[in-house]
Structure formats: structure tokens, C-alpha cells
């Protein structure tokens, strides 16, 4: 079974506003408001460019923010993907 691909409607169906280094998001489809803390807004931006699975997302994320792709990065990416799924900002296919 292949790894799920994650997609997002961010930022297309959202209003966004940076505040104090956080990203404030109004998600129109759900009417919910969220605060995004790094690196979740980067993760959403990456998925908005092209949906992908968790490993690829981690790789692109590390490249984007200039860190090593190590176990910690993979773990953080996985954790944050769960939160994004719970929020409704991404979905898995």
C-alpha cells in the first residue's frame, strides 16, 4: 500500500495574515480560524505547489528552510501532518 498523498486548498480558499511570525488563517470551506506555527505554513505552501506524500514533503521542507533531512525532521513532519489533517487544512488521498 503506497503512502498517502496530501492535498490542500490553502491558500486558495483561505484568508491569511502573518502575525508575530505566526500565520493566521481563515479557512473559508470550514469557517474555522487557525494559527499556524512554523513549519506548518511552509508545509502547506509546499503542498499547495504540488501534493505529495510525507517523505517527499519532509525532503522539500528541509530544502526550503535549510535544515538537514534527519530523523527529527521526519518525525516533526509526521506530527505536524496529523495536526493539519485534524484541522481540515489538508486531506489525504
Amino acid at each position, binding site marked *: 500500500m503506497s503512502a498517502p498523498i496530501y492535498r490542500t486548498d490553502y491558500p486558495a480558499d483561505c484568508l491569511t495574515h502573518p502575525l508575530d511570525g505566526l500565520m*493566521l488563517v481563515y479557512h473559508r470551506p470550514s469557517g474555522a480560524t487557525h494559527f499556524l506555527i512554523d513549519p506548518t505554513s511552509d508545509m502547506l505552501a509546499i503542498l499547495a505547489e504540488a501534493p505529495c506524500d510525507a517523505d517527499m514533503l519532509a525532503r522539500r521542507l528541509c530544502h526550503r528552510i535549510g535544515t538537514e533531512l534527519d530523523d527529527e525532521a521526519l518525525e516533526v513532519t509526521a506530527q505536524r501532518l496529523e495536526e493539519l489533517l485534524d484541522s481540515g487544512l489538508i486531506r489525504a488521498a
Partner: protein
Amino acid sequence: MEAMRRLYAGYPAPEQGLATLTALIDAPRAWRRWIRPQAAIDGDFTLPGAIPMAIRHGLLAMEMAMNMQVALGERRHLLLHAAAIERGGKALILPGESGSGKSTLAALLGEQGWRLMSDEFVMIDLVTGLALPFPRPISLKNSAIPVMEALIADSSRFGPLLSDTPKGMLRHLRPSARSIAAMDVPAKPALILFPRFGDDAAAAGISQSELFMRMTEGSTNYVALGQPAFETLIEMVRTIPAASFSYPDTATGLAIVEQFCAEAGL
């Protein structure tokens, strides 16, 4: 009822009369559908077990019903659970739950040169960003009662003293004639202060993101209003300075408020 009439002397007559309010009091279950427990009435009473009331607290029940009517009916305004006072066309907003002292501070300042806009609810116009007043009778509790009694000579402004309510002693105070006359006059929010009564004097600045979060907590209808509320609140946190402060006694609280106002240009 005579007490009620006196409290509301000087107000324009309500369009629908008081019959609507009675209907609300008789239908507590209807309220429960709309009200999340955290966003309930200013904590004079919690919903379970508080309804129905004894007749001698009928005055209070009318008060609560009006609170609810406002909270449920407003769709064009972001409703904040906050006191507000105005000076020079600018509003100081004091969000807070019951016990924070916001109502007492606002009441005092309303007798000392400020116009009281509200002790309980502030409505922010989603288009203009202006704060609209709602100068209902102020709920004074316990120690606030003698403080205001000493300050205000006109005893007709006070409702009856209500003892043994769940929150202790309660007495309503009619806002000044000036406040009532200006009940349709909005003001531009210029400062937001979160008071907390009962600790040593201290103050802390509040960042924009924290302010956004705290304001949504104090709004009964933020989620329901959707995008316009988001945009209005963004604009508020971007442009209005905010801080929190604690104070051990009223005199200190007032001094801290005036200092912040001086710095913010109110």
C-alpha cells in the same frame, strides 16, 4: 416593576415592549440550543439551577434576558464581552470575565470624566470598526457597591440591593445621563486593556497574535460571523495597542488605566 422603571428612566421605550423579554425568561431550554456554556451570561449565574428565579430577583432576570437578546440577535456586529469607556471620541476596551473588575473600573471611570459605553458588552461594527455603546444598568457586586454609593449622590440611580444571589450582593446602577444620551454615539477603539483584580500591580504587553486569540475568547459570536469577523479582528489587532494588568485595589487599578491611556493618547 417600579424599580425597573426607575432604573430605565431616561431610556427610549423599547420597540417591542417588555413582553418579548418575558418570553425569553420562560424558555430556558431555547437558550441552551444557542449558548455554549463558556459563552454564557456574565457570570452572575450559571445556567443550570439558576432558572427559574425567585420573584425578588425578577429584576435580575430581566437583566439577564436582555443580555441574551443582545447576544443572540446581533449579526452585524462582533460582540465582545468587555466594558468600554470613551474620552475624546476614542474608546478604551476592557475585556474580561466576571470577577476581572472590568465593570467596576468602567463604572468608576464613567463618573470621573469618561463616558461609560458599556459595563458588559461592546459591539464592533464589522464595516467601520467603530465600537458601539450599550449602556445598560451596571451590575455592581459586593465591595463595588459601597464604592459607587459613596461616589454617586443621586440615589435614584441605584436599583434595590439584592442580597444572597449566587455571587453575593448585587446592586444595579443606572449609567449617567450623559452615557444614556450618547447611547447611539460610537467611538474608535484606541486601546485594549485586560484587567485582573486581586494580584499585585503588574502589567504586560500583549502581542498581536495573543490579542487575536484573547479577543475571540471574549466574543460570543466570532465563529458564527465568519470571514467579516476575521477581517475585523485582524484590523483591530494590527492597529490597537493592548496590554494586561493586575491590580490589588481599585485606586491602583484606576491609576494604571490612566497611565496606559496617557501613553496611548486617550
